[in-house]
């Protein structure tokens, strides 16, 4: 029986395994060093905040794996020998494979800051990181002040976590406004305000210069590059992005760049070796997408696709229209299609904000053809299916605004904003 070995039990690896099982009775083994069972990385914050226990983050009950004949193996793969089709583990064990799927995810970036490896300095990616936050910052007596470096999605989640235990948080953001490499001005500023409402000490245009140690090798303070200001702290969260977790592959024949290089079939340069999820890098970016996409959904979609190929139905990885979502403290965010931080040539943004400053939408469209290109919504839920269809059908912004009601996904009885939005758009056209 063909043996499919998957390194990594995250969403990418597990989705691949599930789909391979559905289509075949091949032998499947999933390897992970991090945890015995698959858990949802996206839910780590809720465990620290007390919304859930760790076991609640596990999407499948423990019997699921045995029942579906998916072998789970805990251990760290140190080396991949592609010629012998064999993996070598840190403890010396070996494992033979027929087909190998690399789904090893990411690791937090560290940019060589002085002091980045001190005690009390950490990223937030793995289960172990979560355990460490609970140790380094259990409450506001042990941790009187925390500093977070790097203004992305994980940074703001970490800030929310620490605030839930009443820990003062200073948030160093390199950009002039939160996540404004991705979010247009309006949305980005809305989140700035919301963070301040949550008593997060937001420092924009601020870089970390160094982290200072006390006598015991524990963080004592940090220094801000721009101002030279020294902030005493007991905890530093490094959340300046992630990069593929592929160090162990460097010694192999598998071709890598920043990630494991794959073609559209998710195949690496070596036959029978595939890569999916955060760690995979497309040789050529697909459409407007980045070559490495470190999000949950793409990991899942690659898993769905590679399973087909492995089971003999060779299929290209063809992600549909871009979508994503996040939650910034209390404000939910969804996006469908493309809304870039700044309109590109011949594009325009229509931005509307509700008077409470917690609800807004931004629609990106083509100035000449009026074609709808994408939408950001904050504080309003939208239907994925409807926007996916409208994007495929290349609807105009006028159509979208006229039919916005159909796309609304807010719970029943919620206040509706379609008319206000529509009126604002017409108004803008008149004044423009």
């Amino acid at each position, binding site marked *: 029986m063909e043996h499919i070995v998957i390194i990594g039990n995250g969403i990418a690896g597990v989705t691949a395994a599930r789909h391979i099982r559905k289509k075949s009775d091949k032998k499947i083994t999933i390897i992970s060093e991090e945890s015995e069972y698959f858990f949802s990385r996206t839910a780590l914050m809720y465990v620290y905040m007390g919304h859930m226990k760790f076991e609640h983050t596990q999407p499948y009950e423990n019997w699921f794996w045995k029942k579906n004949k998916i072998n789970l193996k805990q251990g760290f793969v140190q080396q991949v020998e592609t010629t012998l089709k064999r993996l070598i583990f840190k403890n010396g064990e070996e494992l033979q494979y027929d087909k190998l799927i690399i789904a090893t995810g990411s690791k937090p970036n560290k940019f060589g800051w002085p002091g980045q490896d001190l005690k009390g300095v950490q990223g937030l990616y793995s289960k172990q990181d979560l355990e460490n936050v609970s140790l380094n910052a259990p409450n506001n007596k042990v941790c009187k002040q925390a500093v977070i470096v790097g203004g992305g999605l994980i940074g703001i989640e970490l800030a929310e976590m620490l605030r839930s235990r009443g820990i003062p948080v200073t948030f160093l953001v390199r950009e002039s406004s939160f996540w404004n490499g991705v979010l247009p001005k309006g949305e980005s500023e809305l989140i700035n305000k919301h963070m301040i409402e949550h008593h997060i000490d937001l420092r924009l245009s601020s870089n970390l210069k160094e982290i200072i140690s006390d006598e015991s090798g524990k963080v004592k303070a940090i220094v801000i590059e721009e101002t030279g200001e020294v902030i005493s702290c007991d905890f530093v969260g490094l959340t300046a992005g992630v990069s593929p977790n592929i160090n162990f592959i460097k010694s192999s024949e598998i071709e890598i760049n920043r990630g494991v290089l794959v073609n559209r079939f998710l195949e690496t340069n070596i036959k029978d070796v595939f890569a999916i999820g955060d760690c995979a890098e497309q040789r050529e970016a697909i459409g407007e997408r980045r070559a490495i996409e470190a999000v949950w959904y793409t990991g899942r979609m690659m898993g769905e696709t590679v399973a087909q190929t492995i089971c003999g139905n060779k299929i290209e990885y063809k992600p549909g229209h871009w979508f994503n979502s996040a939650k910034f403290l*209390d404000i939910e965010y969804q996006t469908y299609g493309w809304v870039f931080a700044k309109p590109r040539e011949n594009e325009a943004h229509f931005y509307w904000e509700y008077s409470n400053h917690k609800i807004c939408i931004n629609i990106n469209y083509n100035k000449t053809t009026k074609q709808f290109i994408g939408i950001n919504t904050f504080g309003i839920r939208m239907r994925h299916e409807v926007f996916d269809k409208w994007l495929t059908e290349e609807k105009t912004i006028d159509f979208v605004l006229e039919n916005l009601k159909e796309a609304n996904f807010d719970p029943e009885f919620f206040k509706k904003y379609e008319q206000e939005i529509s009126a604002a758009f017409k108004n803008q056209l008149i004044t423009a």
Partner: protein
Amino acid sequence: MSKNSSFSISNPDKLKLDTVQKLGLVLALLGLSIIFLAWFGITFPYPTAFLSISILFIFGGTVIYARQTYINQPAGIKNNYVWFNSLSNRGVLGWLLGMVLTLFYVLLYWFPSYLGYDANGVANTGLVALFDPLSLFFKDKIASQWFVYGTLYTLLITSLGVKFMYKYRHNRYQLIRTTVVIISQLLLAYLIPEILEGLNSDLPYFAKDIKNMWPLNYYFFEPWHLDNMRNGGTLGMLYLVMGIFMFLVFTPIITYYVGKRWYCSWVCGCGGLAETAGDSFRQLSSKTVSSWKIERWMIHTVMVLIFIVTAVVLYGYFTNTGEFFGISIYSYFSKPYGFLIGAMFSGVVGVGFYPVLGSRVWCRFGCPLAGYMGLFQRFKSRFRITTNGGQCISCGNCSTYCEQGIDVRAYAQKGENIVRASCVGCGICSAVCPRGVLKLENGPEEGRINPTDVLLGNDVDLMNFVNKKQD
């Protein structure tokens, strides 16, 4: 730390209470302590004054505390600390509360004299005596233990309902739903029946909570109750006809259009208590597949039981024998059902075990009315929880906070709508979802159940290819 240990043991220090919160808590506790002192046997002088103070303090204190707690934070989901808190995480406080509640129910059902109830209806003492003035006010009769229970029940739903509304003030579904819950309890289950009781004190007793229909109200068709309704004049006949109409016509029709939620999480008394007082315990329900199996067995068994019991009871009624093939219907059918299901299950276990098994044990495993509506909801209804394409991140908030123990995530992460007999439509899964994945809605039956393997967002051809093969 061991492999799969829970992080909840790293209990962070309690956040501090401010003066107003403390004031609210102290008031509520003072109000409660009057109840407890009375329970321990102290018969208060001036019961009118003490009862008023007690009720006002409990309600006012809770409202002050809740308002101060929530209004000072930005509106949003407030589940911080739920799994660190001794009360909501089956800690010492939780178990203690469970024991107190259970004890209360046991006394209520079988030993009311320990609550101060005088079976001869002459002179109550202790807790029941405390409620005499209110009972006298409504119906010129001193209180029974059931009057005490009804009043406390209503007080709990009202105070903790207001707390719930502060907690979910950003969510209009929850605000409207909870307003209806409170009004239903206050008017339909409490004030109207008590006032009618007072106005018709010459008539024999029959149940006057119009929405508490058979088979939840299991004694509706029992001979004494049927007789009392028939001898109850126009009002009695009205309740008899309405009771049958509600069950046979009204319920199926409304359930078809909006799902069983119209009852279970909007007007029902048991549901009302679970949604308000039980809100702190909703996360304790078991989400395992095995508990789902047990659930289906139990709830349908109870349903079949009450159908059989009622059929036999009616047979006995119409043949006028009180016997079924020579055995006493009361001793072998009505009484055991009333004891095991009516009292033990719905009361003692159903509410007493809130802090241990979660707030909907009865609704999920026992209630025959829920079972009945569940069949409609599952097979013939326009209600479903729509899953928003591919947006789910499998975080598990929805499943954790589903009081009915539905593994909502199992559906959402497959892009599949949730169509489940047991869903009471509380809307909390939708509220806590951080990615806007879930929406309770009514719509055409076609396409209500939509099994998918490959989710929206991926290659359209692949989606069509794989998903079609399913059916």
